[in-house]
């Protein structure tokens, strides 16, 4: 009885969420907004892929998204270090390092400043075997890079079932010219 009630409640909640999503879009379609005055407050932020999702604990995600970028390192490097040690046997110990020679503390220090570092004079890529963190292209397999640095250990060979998701490409080809993005499904 109780479980039936819980399932029912979950479905109601999901219906409510889904409906509000649709209503959201509908109302905004009709809305007439003119001018550009006013104050706008930050609600989300992104630098590198998947940092908030994978390495920030649920109770801290909002704080991460609402933070000023220059404060992120100070506020979150300890959290990220703890999470790295928790999820990765390749970084759990004090002697453990990844393929870039970083231990959990050093990697956390890098990731906590959640920005994309982008070269204006050289190749831009998240990682191409030679260049590291000089940008992020659409077809960079960024999660494989992050998985390798988190789970791969010193030689990149540890935990082989965790260092790639075996998804190498997008589901549609990217265009070679602006805007590079594929047309929708």
């Amino acid at each position, binding site marked *: 009885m109780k479980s039936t009630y819980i399932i029912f409640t979950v479905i109601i909640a999901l219906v409510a969420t889904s409906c509000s999503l649709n209503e959201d879009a509908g109302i905004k379609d009709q809305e007439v907004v003119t001018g550009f005055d006013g*104050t*706008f407050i930050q609600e989300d932020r*992104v*630098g590198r892929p*998947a940092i908030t999702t*994978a390495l920030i604990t649920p109770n801290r995600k909002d704080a991460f998204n609402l933070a000023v970028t*220059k404060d992120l390192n100070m506020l979150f490097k300890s959290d990220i270090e703890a999470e790295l040690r928790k999820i990765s046997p390749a970084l759990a110990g004090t002697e453990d390092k990844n393929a870039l020679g970083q231990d959990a503390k050093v990697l956390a220090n890098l990731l906590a400043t959640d920005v994309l570092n982008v070269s*204006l004079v050289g190749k831009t890529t998240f990682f191409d075997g030679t260049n590291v963190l000089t*940008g992020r292209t659409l077809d960079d397999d960024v999660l494989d890079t992050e998985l390798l640095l988190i789970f791969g250990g010193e030689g990149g060979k540890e935990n082989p079932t965790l260092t790639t998701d075996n998804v190498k490409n997008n589901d549609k080809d990217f265009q070679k010219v602006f805007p590079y993005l594929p*047309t929708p499904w």
Partner: protein
Amino acid sequence: MKKKLTLLSILSIFAVILIASDHIDSPSVINTTSDIADYYAFQGNDEANLAFVVTAQGILTPENSKTTQFDQNVVFQINIDTNADNVEDLVIQAVRRGERMWFFGPVKPSKTGTSINIMQDAKIQDNIAITPYKEEQILKTGVNGIKYFAGVTDDPFFFDIATFLKIKAGEATGFNNPGNDTWSGLNVLSIAVEIPKSLLGDTETINTWATTHRKQ
């Protein structure tokens, strides 16, 4: 124009609510119009240019894509730090008005941090018609050589995040081979700008991130 919600669509929405790159990444932004999915910055096919792409409101099924729009009360901001202190020295802002996306900058922001104003007096500004769903992509090159695009696209992100979350939860010990791209067949709202590097100062490296800001 309400959609009929089948149990299947409810369950599929529930399934994707659990996942992300930054898609739907925190309790407060999940399924809101300010939810950034991903951020990209890379050299354009013209080496003199740098392209920036922000994707948002991920988990758009083709059906959802027909009606989902950019929120006129949400400003997208591309933040560019040119002197390595992780404070934005230049910003590019994008906000929808009616059927057009307005772009301001690159310009030095009047204030840095979480509370911003639209730089409506910026010397560099332009606007472009938002590409309607499934129509040919509308592109524009402005007077400064800046290229603009806004509209629904395929979600360019690819990852088997469903399996990753099972691994994190202790329900799987590793990824499958072949993997399954959780984002396959899904769309996203995209903003793209391509800017001559000469407009980004004379530094060799920038730090950059994307933010969304809602009108108070």
